[in-house]
């Protein structure tokens, strides 16, 4: 598993807006521009990528379609990473990771702020006042504990704030008992009425799989599938003052040039090109304390990573049986607990399934894919795996099952190319029936 280099002619396009996104790129040589449309003004924006810069990251990580078009201005060479390769690369480059986090969170705040401004019609919110208002909100509703919390935080953080005396007075009122009737301390907890998490989250975040779920036989082991979409809320962004840059979203990530440069220099076409972790140069970061890292099974990690990559390489040479042996070694490694190693196990099930499928062992492939879903019910590969199970059933001539799985994929958000692919597969089958 290593990045490949790709040549593009002048005038060609690496990807178009609305294309599905699978790859992340570093510009090695040449000139490339990202062309996007501003949401609020509708203006076309053109950002040129610097040599050594990454592009195309966000749509891949966020799993949505390209928001811009990447156009080649002069003949260019780019390094191409798939998501797994990219994640591996950045997980070994702490500085890049932190930079990316900051870039992303900064964008998020900026876009959120724009949203907020439009929602508030320009009313400026002052955090200190708003904090006091939260106290007021709970005070009005006789939620003593919550009101006191907000007032106290106000007083702690804004000792010279204009509402300080009021906050103090309200707390006194609450504590002297003038505020609540005798039974409210009990009622408080009740009227806070937290609904059960499942009911609640379902209401806000509809389950990705339709209720009239098709394949009953499939379900018993996969009730957790219902949870696949429970990633942290997006709404909390939508309604908050967080934000977004107007500078075109996949605009090159400044500051990431160095890494890209190093990676692209290390990459040599004729070597067995593996990405070596870029040496950590920065000194400003506290090294992990020996106590926290000593029991970290790094040794095993390297082992399974190595095996996985060997499998991957054998697979790409068409040596499926040998690849399967490697993947099995990863899968059968005992006592793996850290996420990185487990991720290799997860991917090994996936790749093993593909290798088995390539060798026409469809039933075995289905078993491997099914194991993946059983063991990693929240896998990022879930949708693709379901699709492949469908495909293998189709190849094994179990048409009804194939249809059930395609159906499942079709209904899974987000809507992306694989949903469409499943749909066309399903229609193809139906047209033959």
């Amino acid at each position, binding site marked *: 598993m290593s990045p490949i280099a790709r040549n593009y002619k002048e005038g060609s396009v690496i990807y178009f807006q609305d294309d599905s996104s699978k790859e992340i790129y570093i510009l090695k040589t040449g000139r490339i521009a990202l062309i996007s449309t501003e949401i609020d003004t509708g203006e076309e924006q053109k950002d040129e990528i610097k040599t050594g810069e990454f592009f195309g990251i966000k749509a891949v990580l966020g799993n949505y379609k390209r928001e811009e078009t990447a156009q080649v201005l002069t003949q260019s060479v780019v390094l191409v990473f798939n998501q797994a390769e990219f994640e591996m690369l950045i997980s070994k480059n702490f500085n890049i990771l932190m930079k990316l986090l900051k870039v992303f969170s900064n964008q998020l705040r900026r876009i959120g702020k724009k949203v907020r401004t439009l929602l508030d019609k320009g009313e400026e919110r002052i955090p200190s006042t708003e904090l006091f208002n939260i106290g007021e909100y709970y005070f009005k509703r006789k939620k003593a504990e919550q009101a006191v919390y907000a007032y106290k935080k106000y007083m702690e953080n804004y000792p010279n704030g204009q509402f300080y005396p009021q906050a103090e007075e309200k707390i006194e009122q609450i504590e002297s008992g003038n505020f609540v009737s005798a039974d409210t301390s009990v009622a408080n907890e009740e009227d806070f009425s937290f609904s059960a998490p499942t009911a609640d989250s379902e209401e806000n975040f509809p389950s990705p799989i339709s209720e009239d779920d098709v394949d009953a036989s499939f379900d018993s082991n996969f009730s957790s599938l219902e949870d696949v979409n429970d990633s942290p809320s*997006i709404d909390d962004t939508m309604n908050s003052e967080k934000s977004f840059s107007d500078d075109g979203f996949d605009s090159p990530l400044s500051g990431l040039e160095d890494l890209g440069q190093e990676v692209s220099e290390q990459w040599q076409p004729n070597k067995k090109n593996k990405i070596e972790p870029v040496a950590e140069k920065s000194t400003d970061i506290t090294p992990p304390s020996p106590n926290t890292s000593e029991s970290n099974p790094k040794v095993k990690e390297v082992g399974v990573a190595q095996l996985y990559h060997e499998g991957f390489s054998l697979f790409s040479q068409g040596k499926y049986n040998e690849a399967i042996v490697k993947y099995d070694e990863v899968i059968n490694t005992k006592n793996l607990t850290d996420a990185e190693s487990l991720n290799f196990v997860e991917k090994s099930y996936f790749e093993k399934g593909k290798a088995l499928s390539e060798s026409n062992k469809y039933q075995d492939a289905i078993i491997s894919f099914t194991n993946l879903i059983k063991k990693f019910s929240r896998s990022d590969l879930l949708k693709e795996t379901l699709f492949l199970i469908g495909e293998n059933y189709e190849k094994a001539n179990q048409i009804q099952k194939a249809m059930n799985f395609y159906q499942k994929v079709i209904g899974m958000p987000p809507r992306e190319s694989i949903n469409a692919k499943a749909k066309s597969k399903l229609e193809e089958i139906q047209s033959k029936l």
Partner: protein
Amino acid sequence: MFISEELVQRFGKTFKAGEIIFCEYEPGDDFFLIQSGHVKIIKIVSDKEKTLDVLVGGDIFGEMAILEQQPRSATAISQDEVKVLNFNRQNFELLLKTNPEIAIKLLKMFARRIYEAKRQLRVLTFAEPETRVADVLILLAEKQGLLSEDASKLAVTASTEDLLSLTGLKETDLDKILQSLSVQHKIEISGNKIIVSNIKEFERLIHSKQKQQNRI
């Protein structure tokens, strides 16, 4: 994820049910990793508590404050007994360094949220309330994975609260528009669902509005 006993001892905290962990607009420079229990994330919107999410073990919250040094953007309340690891800026970096997959998870979460926020921004760029409502219905249909070639009769789950907070409209205005759309048989309201007769029609509307805007 690798969480040592030592981390738990150094950074572990327990909240009982109903406690505020932090409050919207409160300054803060620490964040939390849930070990067990449920944490409800809420915001007060138009004088009502709105639940944004319920988080469970393995989820992270409060991270924006660390990365950006901004007040909290929502309130976190424990729903039952909640055990968390509580990190400040310094040990946030330490945690990410020893567990890069947490950082990657955050990156993915941000990438997704940026997308959603931009999507809402598109809604808000339309001046006419009716266009906003149409675009929000498309947004929700997208989010709920309902869009496909066959666009007839999509049942979009949409509470009044959601519609209000996404469109930024007043309740009376929203009601008027929903009513007028129903009268025109463009939508049908049934409980928490809005059945859209033909989403393609809404998409065409949005498309033409975008063109108009760009000409101006």
